[in-house]
């Protein structure tokens, strides 16, 4: 008799802990054959608010880290991801008809993307910032700094790479992040929590919730502790809802236009111009003559 497999029930990853939703709800994720592949948590607005609190609490720790240290931590995360290639490849294949080679290619691209962002942590400041030659006796320079808590709404495809590319940009600049996993295939997001836990990401810097994304749009957009929102491939009505909600606290909203093969090109996904929407430019003046 065939062995009964142990189907995993994935928890969410909030504040450095694996937790179930306070609502007690879960969603059965069916694979392409229509069998239940796993169960994931169906997050409530309260779960999201809890995640925001954790992310907010971790912000000064993460944004005050030197770029060098953030880079090493992100690189460590890439190492952990590399070590679980097969698990991620099969998670991608669960919901998407693709060869194992194609799934591995997506995992590899995700690892490489993360490595690229790891490299940017102590360099994007020099590309995005500058000294300004004002017409007077002043030192004047502009430097980028992190905004705060950024909500990442993961695209459905590519289910791992899309998530990593959108997560990497705000993270490398020193923002803390709440990922809302894809509701079509949330498994890569759910496993990514395990990667975070085994790398050196401080608690609360990356928080991952799963469930029905559209249920959370309004709460994400109107939560006053959320500084920015990053997503890709959203329908127009969803973009309208998010931007209207975001107006009241002037959130920085970025709808990525990355598509198709773009995702696999690290020079595109890990461009500093994708980091730029999640930093604030600060210009400092000081007299240079007395």
């Amino acid at each position, binding site marked *: 008799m065939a062995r009964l497999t142990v189907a995993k029930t994935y928890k969410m990853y909030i504040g450095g802990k694996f937790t179930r939703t306070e609502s007690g709800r879960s969603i059965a994720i069916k694979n392409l054959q229509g069998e239940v592949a796993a169960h994931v948590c169906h997050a409530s607005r309260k779960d999201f608010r809890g995640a925001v609190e954790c992310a907010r609490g971790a912000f000064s720790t993460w944004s005050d880290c030197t770029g060098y240290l953030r880079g090493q931590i992100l690189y460590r995360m890439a190492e952990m991801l590399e070590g679980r290639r097969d698990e991620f490849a099969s998670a991608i294949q669960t919901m998407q008809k693709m060869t194992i080679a194609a799934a591995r290619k997506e995992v590899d691209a995700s690892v490489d993307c993360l490595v690229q962002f790891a490299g940017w942590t102590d360099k994007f400041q020099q590309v995005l910032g500058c000294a300004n030659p*004002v017409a007077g006796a002043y030192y004047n320079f502009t430097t980028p700094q992190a905004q705060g808590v950024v909500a990442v709404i993961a695209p459905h495809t590519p289910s791992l790479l899309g998530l990593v590319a959108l997560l990497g940009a705000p993270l490398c600049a020193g923002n803390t992040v709440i990922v809302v996993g894809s509701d079509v295939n949330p498994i890569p997001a759910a496993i990514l929590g395990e990667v975070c836990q085994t790398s050196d990401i401080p608690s609360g810097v990356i928080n991952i919730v799963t469930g029905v994304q559209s249920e959370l749009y309004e709460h994400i957009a109107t939560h006053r502790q959320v500084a920015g929102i990053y997503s890709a491939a959203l329908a127009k009505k969803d973009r309208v809802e998010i931007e209207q909600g975001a107006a009241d606290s*002037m959130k920085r909203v970025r709808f990525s236009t990355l598509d198709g093969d773009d995702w696999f090109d690290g020079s595109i996904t890990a461009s500093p111009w994708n980091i730029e929407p999640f930093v604030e430019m600060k210009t*400092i*003046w000081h007299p240079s003559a007395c």
Partner: protein
Amino acid sequence: MTIATQDTSTEWDYSPALDSTKVTIEQKNKLYIGGKFVSPRSRAWFATTNPATEKKLADIARAGKADVNAAVFAAKTALPKWSRLSGSERAKYLYRIARRIQERAREFAILETMDGGKPIKESRDVDIPLVAQHFFYYAGWADKLAYAFPGASSSPVGVCAQIIPWNFPLLMASWKLAPALACGNTCVLKPAETTSLTALRLAEVFQEVGLPDGVANIITGEGDTGRFLAEHKAVHKVAFTGSTEVGKLLMRQTAGTGKKRTLELGGKSANIIFADAAIDQAVEGIISGIYFNQGHVCCAGSRLFVEESILEEVIHKLTRRLGSLRVGDPLDKNTDLGAVNSKEQLKTIERYIRCGVEEGAELHQTNTSRLPKKGNWCNPCFFTDVQPSHTIAREEIFGPVLSVMTFRTPEEAIARANNSPYGLAAGVWTNKGAKIFEVAKKLDAGIVWCNTYNKFDAASPFGGFKESGFGREGGVHGLRPYVRLGGV
């Protein structure tokens, strides 16, 4: 002889020193669309007045929907040719504009002062020179855009709707138009209804230098005109400077449309004075921080945080300095504070001053300038005993009203400065190098002036954090809102 006993402190006064340059103003000021001054299809006009005399200066066209359509159509029509023109050719138009502004600087300064009420020494020495500098600075970028965005290619956004406020009328026009045109966009600019005259005169400069028709259009009107413009389907970009309230409205109206936005909104900026600062210089910084342009400045240092141990000294010096300010005829070269821009704004400021008194703060209104009988005048003032919860410590007043509060530690100063939904600017005064940079780093503000305040330059990015909006104007960062980047 009686000289020895004469009270010299209050009786002596300067003789009036009025700028005598004559500036002529058309009685009917038309819309500038497609390179021509045209009568409004709406057939509607409104009056613009001199806020220092309450006398009508001229009639201004009120652009309706059909006028907005015509202006956007002109910009759209001009776009292909202008955006394909080589950067070095675009640059030369902008250089010419800068030159003509310099040549006509006195005329612009006087007109700005007559229409808006700001002191002539500010329009002459600050506003108009900065306007020329902006065009000159961005002219040079037009053929160098490939160097502005490393690793990415850039292309123009398209037709830009630009809506500007009344506090720095021509300066705001230059902040909007110069980078947009340098990047190959075409524009429709709407000045504020109380201050349209200098923008329309800028249109004359565009004609003089032969700027191609439709590249920059200037339409006048009130809030509705701005709304029609921002909502227009053929507009690709909305750039707005003004109140946070209207900024939020614009963000909602353009939600999901894919229109790019730059919003430069309100502020309640903190000016922090440590005990180890050079106090006399700091007091000058407080004065220019809050009383510059009658306090009609989005980045005004309207919340003053003084280290507790020097409060008495600062208040003493501030009181003395406030007493020496000259409030009056904006065209007088010795005037420090001119007229409040409109009756409506004067009422708003007066309401805030009453509110400060009612909520228990102590009002210091010690300036004794003799104010003219006619016109919109506000006696500059400051409040002590201000609590962080007081309305005057939280809301943007946009007038010459300062709230003074105290702190004991740098951490407290930073926390209180950041305790605001706004994040436009901040000031820090201390002679300790590491302290100044630590505080500057921790303040949530887009501009931090250290041992100085209210300095502006075309090469220096300006714009805020949080509800003070997003996008930067000035410097290389000021190009970003006017390009689409490829390859990212």
